[in-house]
């Protein structure tokens, strides 16, 4: 066997030439059509979307989640809704202010708190032993208690009225105090 023929096809080598003839049909061809079992895949299509668009979308999603959590934190969540129903089932009637104008016989305590507060005590039905206290309670009941309201609505409304009445009373006290001081200053002059 002549090694040159295998190297650079110089010279002759009958044995190699015979083998080349026999294997010629299996020779590699650059024409893809020559190989019927070759499946051509299309070239990879480059996406027109820039990668930073996905980054921005992710940031927006994070921001929206954070805002949602923040507003949830601020509003105290939805747990109060179920607590309101529970409070109403426990109380037979709404808690009303007990601020008797006359001296009561015993100490009374009215706690009307938002059940969302973890330290809030459950509203308790006050023991009214003074006639004037009962009169105040009756007046509030008769004043504005439309029968169309539910128990929860009536409770919330009464709480609001109680808070507003105390607020307005305090503001009137402030006004009287200021006016009283102005009058005394005027008299001194």
């Amino acid at each position: 066997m002549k090694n040159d023929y295998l190297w650079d096809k110089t010279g002759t080598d009958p044995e190699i030439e015979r083998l080349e003839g026999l294997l010629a049909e299996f020779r590699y061809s650059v024409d893809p059509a020559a190989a019927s079992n070759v499946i051509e895949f299309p070239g990879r299509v480059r996406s027109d979307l820039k990668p930073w668009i996905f980054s921005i979308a992710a940031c927006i999603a994070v921001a929206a989640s954070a805002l949602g959590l923040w507003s949830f934190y601020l509003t105290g969540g939805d747990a109060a809704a179920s607590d309101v129903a529970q409070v109403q089932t426990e109380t037979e009637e709404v808690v009303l202010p007990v601020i008797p104008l006359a001296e009561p016989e015993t100490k009374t305590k009215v706690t009307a708190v938002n059940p969302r507060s973890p330290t809030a005590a459950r509203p308790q039905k006050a023991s009214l032993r003074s006639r004037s206290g009962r009169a105040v309670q009756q007046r509030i009941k008769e004043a504005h208690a439309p029968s169309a309201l539910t128990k929860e609505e009536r409770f919330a409304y009464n709480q609001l009225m109680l808070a507003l009445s105390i607020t307005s009373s305090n503001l009137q006290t402030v006004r009287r105090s200021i006016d009283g001081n102005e009058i005394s200053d005027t008299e001194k002059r």
Partner: protein
Amino acid sequence: MRNILQFLLGATIILAGAFAGSTVCGQDARLQFERLKGMETNARDIVEVDLDGKMLDLAKRVTLKIKDKDGDVKKIGEAISGLKGIYVRVYRFEDENQYNISHVDELRAQLNSPGWQRLANVRSKRNNQMVDVFTMFSGDVMSGVAVVISEAKSVSVVNVVGPIDIDTLVELSGRFNIPKIDIDVH
């Protein structure tokens, strides 16, 4: 992938900073009443009202539902339309000097923090009356009101969070829909 992570990290840092900044700079108008709990022991009458969140929203809706001929309820609804919370504490005592004035002073100290502006300050030797009114504004919008009245036999604190029409409230006091309860009667 690396770019995405960098963007997420940056966004998280910015959001955290904004949240912290708003918490610090956006002063909350709500007062803390824990120190007043010591008064409950000796108090003859106690009134505590905490109205905010869904309960307050429910009450506001009720004011819109109720129709009275004078329209007072509607006026109230308009006066409190922006309200976010209203908190009341009233303590009345049998005799004088039955509570520790330092508890009230600590509450007043909260009103010396940035954001609160003193609107009125009245001191009277009669009944040892001390009246303080503070307001808080966020820009041009009122964000809170605090009224603290301490006398020899009573302590009353009202804390309103959110804008409220004070003139309307005072005007409607004692009329049909707001029972006139004079808590200063001794």
